[in-house]
């Protein structure tokens, strides 16, 4: 993609600028965000501290001792240069396949969600695991991936009353997005299944298996494979 991504630059903090490409959830805007993030990381100017992609905006944190006006000028030059094709759009190539055990105790909302969508549980699993997803951003909690690319017909409102406890690895739908809870926490998304993967481990660097901009697919697995993978992961950590 070589389109010029127009964006506004506004102050997020005295040591951070926010590049806003739009104000809606849109795959093209999100691709522009990740392209700019990749360019900044590749350039790696000495003042750069953190690059935080979100759905349609990108935060650029810089060394607090740097003059914000100078960083602003450098970012403006980068935006106006606009040639995103010179550098890779995504941090990594390929599609990451995430194993998921759908339904049962691991996906307590699968049946009710399917019924609400007028599908059988089997159809919902087939359509959810057929999707091509992109890690639009990671946030809310450490390692929580917001995945865009959910088939619009599978969108589901959040639960009226969030659960006090959602198991780590729960794969869920919230509104028009799907995501995975990295650790046990409260949550209001519809739980379809669970992955045996540990999505966030602060003892590893990097602490997540997924990076913003990654492409992701789900693969349905059975209880036996879930147990095998979960125990292998315990042994590895």
């Amino acid at each position, binding site marked *: 993609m070589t389109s010029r991504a127009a964006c506004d630059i*506004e*102050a*997020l*903090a*005295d*040591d*951070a600028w*926010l590049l*806003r490409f739009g*104000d*809606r*959830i849109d795959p093209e805007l999100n691709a522009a965000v990740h392209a700019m*993030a990749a360019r900044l990381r590749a350039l790696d100017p000495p003042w750069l*501290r*953190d*690059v*935080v*992609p*979100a*759905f*349609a*905006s*990108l*935060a650029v*944190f810089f060394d*607090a*001792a740097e*003059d*914000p*006006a100078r960083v602003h000028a450098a970012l403006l030059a980068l935006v106006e240069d606009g040639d995103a094709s010179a550098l890779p759009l995504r941090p990594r190539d390929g599609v990451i396949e995430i194993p998921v055990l759908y339904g049962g105790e691991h996906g307590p909302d699968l049946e009710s969600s399917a019924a609400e969508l007028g599908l059988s549980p089997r159809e919902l699993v087939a359509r959810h695991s057929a999707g091509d997803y992109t890690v639009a*951003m*990671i*946030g*809310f*909690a*450490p*390692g*929580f991936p*917001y995945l865009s690319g959910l088939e619009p017909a599978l969108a589901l409102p959040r639960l009226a009353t969030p659960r006090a406890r959602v198991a780590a690895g729960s794969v869920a739908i919230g509104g028009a997005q799907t995501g995975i809870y990295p*650790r046990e926490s409260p949550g209001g998304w519809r739980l379809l299944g669970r992955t045996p993967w540990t999505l*966030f481990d*602060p*003892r590893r*660097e*990097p*602490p*997540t298996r997924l*990076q*913003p901009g990654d492409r992701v697919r789900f693969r349905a697995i059975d209880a036996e494979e879930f147990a095998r993978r979960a125990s292998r992961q315990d042994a590895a950590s």
Partner: protein
Amino acid sequence: MTRQLHVLAPGLLTTVQDRGRSGWRHLGVAHAGALDVDAARIANRLVGNDGDAAVLEFTLRGPRLRFDAPSRIAIVGAPPVVRFEGKTVPSGRPVELPAGTLELGALRGGARAWLAIDGGIDVEPVLGSRSTDLRGGFGGLDGRALREGDVLPLGMGSARQVDTPQAPAWWIDPAHDTHLPIRYRPSAHAAASALARRSWTISASSNRQGLRLQGDALPAPGGDGVSEPVAPGTIQLPVDGCPIVLLADAQTVGGYAKLGHVIAADLPRLAQCVPGQPLHFAPVDAATAHRLACAARARIARIGVMIDARLPAI
């Protein structure tokens, strides 16, 4: 022999903190770190540590701690009543202690203080920092606030053998101008300038993630917007119209409208806000924010030079 620090009573919320984590925000990892990194740096400097050694941050009421070997300590922030084996211990200066029990009481004139110990709190760094990430549950001591019975490892120290607490006659008082309004850079949001025209009160539900403000609610949008990055200092406007000022433990993205951000020079002052306290805001332009940030850095550097000039005299 490695020195250890025994927690006899934890205080209200005592955590291990250093200057915080950077480089992992894109994976949802908060910055964390001391709410006033300048105060933590000065405390470290007073005991002869690197500025980024880990310290204890305590909230409203300090802990009771037993040192099993001689240690040099310094307390900076809202001054608590401090006693060592019944004797009063002063703040804002290096104090040589023999083994024994240090009791930090209620804080006066603010919400937080920092205790540096020679050698630093030697917990394992996680993602490049020893800071406690309370929401993420990692860093510091098991990712949580201290509890009774905890034992913290201390780094290689340089304290002298003394029989009673010994402190020099000089002290450092890096107190903030508490009467000035909190200065902020307003966003383009319609309610951004109205923030400065109303008076606010710090809510008791405030924590290291953010200060919740109570007052005349501002006009707010009906629902959340598309999530965008946020930062410590971001002033959010939730649907109830009562602003939240994010602090060091802030999440990395959020969907609330933004009224702007507190300038870097005034972020340390937010650490001292006590529930029930009034708070006022004043908008400033970018040049003023930059000038004040440079002045604040220069002031901390000057304090550091002053400390270094006096330290050999301990």
